[in-house]
């Protein structure tokens, strides 16, 4: 089982990293790039049946995302291995 968590900066929070990447793309000749924002993907492999959505939500809230500045979403996939 796997949970994929997407953590992105809240709207309105400055993203210096994104800005630097935007400027770099620009100077490399990629025109038309208006804005770049950089976030995180956190892939969590879970033991089967061990965790449910509530737990993952709790992980996000308590550790994976800094809710003062970041939003998160996640999806669960059943893919076994």
């Amino acid at each position, binding site marked *: 089982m796997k949970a994929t968590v997407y953590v992105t900066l809240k709207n309105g*929070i400055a993203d210096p990293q994104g800005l630097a990447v935007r400027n770099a793309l620009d100077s490399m000749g990629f025109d038309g790039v208006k804005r770049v924002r950089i976030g995180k993907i956190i892939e969590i492999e879970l033991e089967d049946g061990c965790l449910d959505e509530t737990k993952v939500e709790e992980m996000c809230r308590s550790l994976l995302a800094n809710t003062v500045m970041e939003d998160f979403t996640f999806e669960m996939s059943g893919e076994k291995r």
Partner: protein
Amino acid sequence: MSSSTLDYSLAGLSQSEFDLICEKLCREPNLLELAMFGVMWSEHCSYKNSRALLKTLPTGGNAILQGPGENAGIVDIGEGLAVVMKVESHNHPSAVEPYQGAATGVGGIIRDIFTMGARPIALLNSLRFGELDKSRTRYLFENVVKGIGDYGNCMGIPTVAGEIYFDDHYAGNPLVNAMCVGIMRHEEVKYARAKGVGNPVMLVGATTGRDGMGGAAFASVELTEQSLERKSAVQVGDPFMEKLLLEACIELFKTDAVIAIQDLGAAGLTSSCCEMASRGRSGIKIELSCVPRREEAMTPVEIMLSESQERMLVVVKRGREKEVGSIFEKWGLSGTVIGEVTDDGLFTVLERGKVVASLPARLLADDAPVYTRESTRPAYLESVGLFDLHEREDMNIKETLIALLARPTIAGKEWVYSQYDHMVRTSTVTVPGSDSAVLRIRGTDRAIALTIDGNGSYCYLDPFRGAAIAVAEAARNLVCSGARPLAITDGLNFGNPEKREIYWQFKETIAGLAAACNVLGTPVISGNVSFYNETETGAIFPTPIVGMVGVIEDISKVTESFFINEGDAILLLGENTHELGGSEYLRMLTGKTIGECPAIDLEREKKVQRLCLEAIERRLLNSAHDCSEGGLAVALSECCFGKGLGAKIELNDTLPIDALLFGEAQSRIVVSLDESKLGSLLGLAGEFGVPVQVLGRVDRSELKIDVCGREVLSVPVGELEARWKGAIECAMRS
């Protein structure tokens, strides 16, 4: 009418303040103007509750080139060079978002330094947290340290010294004070005084967003009136942008195109513009539509109050905009002309040509009312002075010492400073770990020594003495490195000054600082006041922080705190007296800050310091270390660490053993020297009228202490060092 009554309170102003504004303006301010008054007359910007008392601090002296009032103070260090320095707090932002709060605190103080025309060469920090047994505290500590480190490291400015205490009075309201030190030639100084009608005002650096507008209560007006989406955002530091700004400004200063420069700190554009105009006795007019923004649909209030980081305001000579612009461009920045200097004394804000605010710059920047509050001696002082310890005589000295060395407040701070680049710029001669940091000044034989100190526990028990001790300890730390103390910058952290007991603490603190600065000859050249450091569980300890700079004329005389030669004699300059009050030892035993604050005799202190300095001048000493938290036993242990040496000590004082070993009596320095120089040192001590005693001898790998002929301690230094060194890391892993 009813709407304006509502408005001023939301802007954080009182009825009388609002009335005063109306009277001075001969009209009611509009909403934007009210917001601007709200932030400029806030405690943070106007110092309305502290100004009257701050005036009583000594601020002048031969070496002082610039006292408080500018972005940072300046002191002469000889050979045409000057040091610029200031300390600043970022307590509240760090409590909310420790990483960004600490990082932007560092960013802000660096801008204060280079805006004066100086190249920043060192950073220091002073931190207070709750005890490390709580996960929230560990989270705050870990991230504050990371935030400070990442910002300074990226800027290439070494973080060379600091101090940290852990006590639950700071649990909900940690203190994060950052200090920056810069260097320049005297003639390179730049001021933030807008002059010359028609000279363009340029904004450079980051774009403006809705960051950090929580400072002023007024922001919430917008919240209710507009959408909820618009709530102010956490400020995010961009050290890369700041590095570009720094290099661009330093290059810019080499031209003569700059009339005035000022960073944007609290209250953003509002404060920087009106302060520049007020200082220059001129006016400034800006056009909001010219301000480059990061977000859409920003209102004038939002633009004027935004605290987006990494921005500077520069007034340049008319006609030189191109030249200035091309320097910014080289560094990947754009400078935008947003307005010009006028001579009408007004700060005028236009939005697409229409005047949206027009206020006397001076009224806004400097004429906030000044309050002297009522004060009352706090009730708690009646009960904290007394304590009763049982069974002190048969305690296990070794276990007590080890436990004390492992207290995070006393333990080695390598876990912290190894995360800070303290060597970049290859000028750090004494790295963190000794009493003060020493930096060489390239191109001269000189060095400067830096330290930052303060003990909130002492101040809680007696703010006057505690503040005086902070100054004394800072000076002592410098003297131990061989430096002559020159000047201080002070960070004053307190609870709510509207409460009488807090105001009393503040008043006493200022008096204590002033007394010590006067006697020790170290005026205050800059500083910061942070009030309202309180949570539901109460106020923090009153915590003045003293950052100090000293000069070493001959770099070959730099001395460190560690013993370096086996066989050297160990001496104590000063005297062991019975001072257990406020000690870390008592706190360890009782869990409380109790007792009487250690006494400080400033004249005695001065003599001890003079003796130490003179002895170093004459190359008599091989090491010098001040006795502070943890007392004599901890100081001796610290002298042994690092070089793998030990010491054999014989004490003959008749004090209770814990007071002798762990008491925190002031004005004491542990020194080591070659046997052959003992006579000279004793002679010198006689001349200076300072009591000294021979404590023993530097030995191999063991610390042995006998008291009145009885062995009380015998322990391999390695065992002590391991606990001292590993304590914080260990606490962080739990």
